[in-house]
């Protein structure tokens, strides 16, 4: 763990109701421009870990710091603000709002912090260009394929230049070829924006695009040679 890490996790532990301990002693550091993939069996707590990193769930023990800000020191409003300004998300099910245009969907994180619609939409248009969807900003979710929807989601995750990008099974709903292209785009975006990227996946093929691959188990994360 270096001083330049954008994400620092120390001694994290999480138990669920009942006798079950999901993980403990979990340490993780992610540097700017680095993409880390976390793999593990179903039910091991991968999504829970992402939720804790996003401030959507609480750990039983340990600390999470994003760009120097310790999540535990923030109340709900502070965590909300941190997510709004410093974190980007990519989901397996895309979650593109069907009643907003694609441009508005991408611009949503900017619209949450500023009422300047023109600036937000111009930046969203840039991001759509960057993910290969030039000129599609006026369209709606129903007009796109799964791969295109996930590219819109990636554009949305990066539009506000976050320090940390969290991705939960970003290619789980895509065919292999589309998944490969989307992952390449995702990795390029993380590196190009010098953000810290954490991706949770089942798939070894998806994990292969990451700089580091970590396996999540009951005793935390174990690095795996790719």
């Amino acid at each position, binding site marked *: 763990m270096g001083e330049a890490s954008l994400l620092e996790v120390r001694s994290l532990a999480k138990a669920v109701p009942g006798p079950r301990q999901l993980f403990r002693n979990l340490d993780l550091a992610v540097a700017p421009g680095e993409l880390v993939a976390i793999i593990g069996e179903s039910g091991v707590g991968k999504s829970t870990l992402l939720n804790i990193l996003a401030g959507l769930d609480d750990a039983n023990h340990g600390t999470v710091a994003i760009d120097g800000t310790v999540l535990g020191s923030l109340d709900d409003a502070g965590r*909300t603000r941190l997510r709004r300004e410093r974190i980007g998300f990519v989901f397996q099910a895309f*979650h593109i709002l069907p*009643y907003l245009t694609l441009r508005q969907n991408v611009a949503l994180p900017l*619209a*949450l*912090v500023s009422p300047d*619609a023109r600036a937000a939409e111009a930046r969203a248009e840039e991001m759509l260009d960057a993910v290969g969807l030039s000129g599609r900003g006026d369209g709606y979710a129903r007009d796109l394929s799964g791969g295109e929807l996930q590219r819109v989601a990636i554009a949305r995750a990066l539009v506000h230049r976050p320090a940390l990008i969290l991705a939960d099974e970003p290619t789980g709903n895509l065919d292999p070829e589309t998944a490969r292209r989307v992952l390449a785009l995702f990795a390029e975006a993380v590196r190009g924006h010098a953000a810290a990227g954490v991706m949770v996946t089942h798939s070894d093929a998806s994990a292969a695009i990451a700089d580091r691959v970590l396996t999540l188990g009951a005793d935390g994360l174990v690095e795996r040679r790719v």
Partner: protein
Amino acid sequence: MSDWAGLISGRLALGWLIGGEWRFHPARFVTTAVAIAVGVALGFAVHLVNGSALSSFDGAMRGVSGAADLSIRATSPLGFDERLYPRVATAAGVSDASPVVSLPARIGRTRFTLLGVDVIRAANVTPSLIGRRPRGPDSAGDAAFDEAALFLSRDALTQTRAKIGAVVPVVANGRTVRLRIAGTLPGAGDVAIGVIDIATAQWRFGKLGRLDRLDLTLSDRSVAAPAVRAILPPDAIVSSAVAQSAQGDALSRAYRVNLDMLALVALLTGGFLVYSAQSLSVVRRQRAFALLRTLGMPRRAVVAAIVTEGLGIGVVGAAVGLLAGYGLAWGALRWFGGDLGAGYFGGSGVHLVFQPRAALGFFTLGLVAAILGSVLPALGAARAAPAAALKNAGDVVDPRAPAAWIPAVLLLGAGVGMALLPAVNGLPLFGFAGMALMLAGGVAGVPWFARALLKPIAAHGAWPVPRMLAVRHLYGAPGEAATALCGIVASTALMIAMATMVTSFRGAVDDWLGTVLGADLYARTTAGAAFDPEVRMRLAATPGVAHVAFSRQIPLTIAPDRPPISLIARPERQGRDPLLVLIARAPTIPATAVPVWVSEPAQRLFGWDPGETIALPIAGRTRFYVAGVWRDYGRQAGAVLIDEADYQKLTGDTGRDEVSVIVTPGEDVARVSARMTARLPAALRDQVEITRPATLRRFALTLFDRSFAVTYLLEAVAILVGLVGVAATMSAQTISREREFGMLRHLGLTRRQLTDMLATEGAIVGFTGALAGIVLGLALAQVLIHVINPQSFNWTMTTRIPFGTLAAVTAALTGAATVTAVLAGRRATARQAVLSVREDW
């Protein structure tokens, strides 16, 4: 940055969310806005009609009063001694006084108030009562001094269809006098009055030595009022335009407030419809809100987005409602007049009066209903954990979770407690507030009620699969049924409460009429005519008459700002009147006391209890002993019964205006009636109406039903809004389960089985709603019967349950919900099963 700052900076995103939702679901927006509009329109229209009628009534009172500074009024039609006039005219602070004789009169069938004035005095004090001849004002008074000259207001002239110069027979105080229409009364406004010289009025119409009113102009009110009060006899009171206005207001206030409240039921139902629609919309957008929360939208922004939607619905609905309400009121006044059925404002021409404060009030109520309907779903959406909501497909129902009942019990308890508080200024405000809380509690308890109802059915394992699925779905998610049902439960409960109250009231009135109309024939005089002692003897001696009881009924003003009570003089001391329904009596009547029996409304209004000594402003004798309390549903302002011998001794009034007749057994009632008519003097014959008790009873019940007709209409609209709510909500719920139906079709359920499942669900939901509405309605009826009615109208009754209505409501609601569910199900199951589950693959 706080949550609030985040809300402000995120307003662009909020705008996109709200705009997107409305663009994609305009029907939802329109339906909810229309529901609010209907509620606002009904409430505003009823308020406008009543307000306009009251305003016209007020104007009519001012027209008859002539807008004097202050008036001395007789407490009864017997008037007061005219020797009071010079004493009042010279009292300190009084600059001028105008004596007036006032009589109810008619020309043909046109009824009007006949005023006798001194034209010279009236010219100074009440110039609006000065007549105008075709050539100009009658300021010289030469026509007014003509004993046959009559000046009619425009309204009276129009109604009589007579022309100026015509000689017409005027009937008043039992006498007919031919008068010449000499001109009009331009200052009288829209009121039917006629003015003649006071000497003619006293001489020709039998009021010699008596006056009914003294109109005053004052040089110093603060000096005049106490000076005049000091010299007043007991049979006169000081009154002002304000007090007159208050009297008119008091007469109908409880009725108007009750009708306003009823009209607001539709708005309340509209508010619940907003709640249903917003709840569904929130469930549908659960993942969208979760996404936005994940992306950093503050909780308050989620609340703000949904409440802003409610605000938009409220603004549009309330604005449209005000316009529609104004149109509705205009139409109602144009086609039905100012009386909404209760008979308070009959007879006066009513013009629509726009009431800006009422408009603002109803607009605000519309907004509040829409916003409140949105707040609970908004808070629920903001509370949802975003991570869980993003992962789940939206169905996070846990059938093991108990249905909450504590909020319902608390609200119901608070409602009952509040309903027990006394009236405020004669209005049952706490009663209405208590009903609102009980209603909220009842609606909050629907999930618990639904689960309790379904528990034994759910435990029964041997159902066919479609029905088992239906029962399990509703048992597991009773909140869903409650969302669909809240509006209809509220409107049904209020409808059942009203129906129970009206049934109880009607039954009580019917029973009461059966008792009080115990004679075979009834007769009464009109236009102030009376049966004098000679006529009474002749009538009593009519062959076939076994028993006659003559009575006198006159209005008696107790306080200038309250409507007069009825003083009824009847034979009472020679044995208790069998027609009197006594509900309380004093243990003994002191030998020296003059007993009176007060009606239940009089007891409640004035606090006159049996055994008390009370003062009545009549004939100078002011102390009476309350010997008992009798049930009376006929006179809302109260009545006092006095033995006719005591009455005659005190007042010297030998006239009687009503008679009840018991015919000899075996005699033909119609023949006896004809014989009695034949024995009347020719001049009196056309001033006496003879009726049978059955006719009176039918007439009374027709009046009763008419006075509640508008109530039924308002309830019907509320039920309709509630049914639309059930239909819209159930449709939306069914359509949102498309994927579930797709999955079931994959598993092998036929479309017919799906329809069976949905029909069962619909029937259960409708039946549950009807049952919940009935239980809640019967509880609310107790507040109406035992709190609202006594506090508003001062009469009590026992509960009678309208079983037929309950059965009809249950059948209608169950049927409507079943049909709605089946129709919505057809649409939802029409798509190919494969497409329905595509997202789950």
